[in-house]
């Protein structure tokens, strides 16, 4: 019942009102389409110069052309492989080290200042050093991506481990679990949801650093494609490369989100 003398606020304006997923998807798609159409129209009407901003239809056509006749796909493959290797390396190192930093205080005390220092070094500033050390081969790219992600990730993992309630450790120990069993069966399981989230976020950063690395020190990969196209003022090819990165990002992010929901159903009630 509505209270007398007080207007009930319209349901649409109710805060945090749940939205059915088909409506949410519908709104998302409609927004994207609207933006694309708007963009297409501005170019078609000659409001912008296609040399600076090609129409979406041109970009799609260019992407198709570059895939069929050019080498967009192999270059995409190279970039994905670099990200995958560097990211895997980061994660494989960061997870155990981060956990160790949190649960064995001396390790944390020793590593934290070092990691904090390196973490604040901007990756581009280390490109020259990296080229001096590793030349311009694959090592440089992997190193730069690793550098940009490992030190961030290791601290996130340490923080995730810190946030596991101490009660879990204590309960497990009074149920007969030994320290390594507690880490394996309790700590990692308790932090896994936020670990997967942090991995997803870090994976996004990998792409940022990849493009930097490929622009300055590479003759393959999407960064190289974009940079070469720029030299010839092929704006639609530049855009095609950029859109490709966006698509890869979107797809992996969505996949990881789905995986998260599936794996951690016990959290979402």
């Amino acid at each position, binding site marked *: 019942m509505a209270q007398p003398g007080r207007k009930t606020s319209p349901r649409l304006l109710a805060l945090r009102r749940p939205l059915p997923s088909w409506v949410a998807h519908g709104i998302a798609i409609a927004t994207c389409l609207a933006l694309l159409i708007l963009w297409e129209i501005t170019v078609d009407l000659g409001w912008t110069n296609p040399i600076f901003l090609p129409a979406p239809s041109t970009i799609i056509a260019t992407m198709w052309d570059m895939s069929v006749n050019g080498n967009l796909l192999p270059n995409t493959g190279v970039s994905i492989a670099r990200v995958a290797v560097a990211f895997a390396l980061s994660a494989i190192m960061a997870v155990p080290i981060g956990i160790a930093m949190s649960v064995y205080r001396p390790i944390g005390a020793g590593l934290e200042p070092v990691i904090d220092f390196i973490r604040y070094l901007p990756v581009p500033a280390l490109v020259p050093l990296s080229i001096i050390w590793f030349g311009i081969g694959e090592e440089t790219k992997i190193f730069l991506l690793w550098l940009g992600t490992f030190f961030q990730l290791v601290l996130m993992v340490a923080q995730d481990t810190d946030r596991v*309630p101490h*009660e*879990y450790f*204590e*309960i*497990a*120990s*009074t*149920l*007969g*679990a*030994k320290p390594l*069993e507690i880490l394996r*069966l*309790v700590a990692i*399981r*308790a932090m*896994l949801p936020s670990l997967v989230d942090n991995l997803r976020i870090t994976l996004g950063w990998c792409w940022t650093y990849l493009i930097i690395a490929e622009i300055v020190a590479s003759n393959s990969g999407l960064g190289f494609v974009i940079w070469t196209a720029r030299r010839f003022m092929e704006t639609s090819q530049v855009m095609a490369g950029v859109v490709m990165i966006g698509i890869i990002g979107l797809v992996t992010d969505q996949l990881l989100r789905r995986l998260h929901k599936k794996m*951690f*159903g*016990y*959290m979402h*009630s």
Partner: protein
Amino acid sequence: MTMPYLQFNDITKTFGNLDVISPPFSLTIPHHQFMVFLGPSGCGKTTLMRMVGGLETASTGMIALQGEAIGEPDSRRGMVFQSYSSFPWLTVEENVAFGMRFRHDLTKTEKRDRAQHYLELVGLSNFAASYPNRISGGMRQRVAIARTLAAGSEILLMDEPFGALDAQRREQLQVELRRIQKEERKTIIFVTHDVEEAVYLADRIIVFSQRPASILEDIDVTAQIGDDRLLELRESPEFLKLRSSVLHTVRAALGSTQ
């Protein structure tokens, strides 16, 4: 000769320069006793209990279980906390079976049967496959109790385990805990601030003084209201009389400083 079951021998505890337990504290708890600790907030009840669990060490003195000094935590002494009591990523049944992972003396079928037995004991057989976020807070505490028993605990250390529950659930769990303790013949140390709960559950109550903790009163509850704790007992004159006398002691404890 009978050896004392659980014995606190001249225990003191300081955190930095905070005296939590002093003068030296001594207490003997016989086998199968339901012991309740009552006392002002911050007096050191949790600290004493954590020492029995091996989660804290005494500054001086020692605690002995059947004549042996206790050390690192193990499955003989199980903890039940008020919060974070069950693992959210495991189903109810997996939670109950958790402690048996570390027991190599049981076969797979024995472990299954044991898990079933304890699930039934706490009335959760129908929720075996549920995750903790799908069941009530009271059920989660049952899970914790069943898990501790299934792991093979002889002593249950329960720190305000029903503190977050509403009155009805609380009463229901009290009845069951008392029944389970007698059926399974376990020794329990139970901390609470609720005098009614203390009197209903306990064979014996220790009332502590303000920090630093020392024993203000040692009350033999069974001698006064008997062993059989039917719900009706709560309205009986003996129960009410004992409850009000304990309440007075607790109030006196609040004013007590050493």
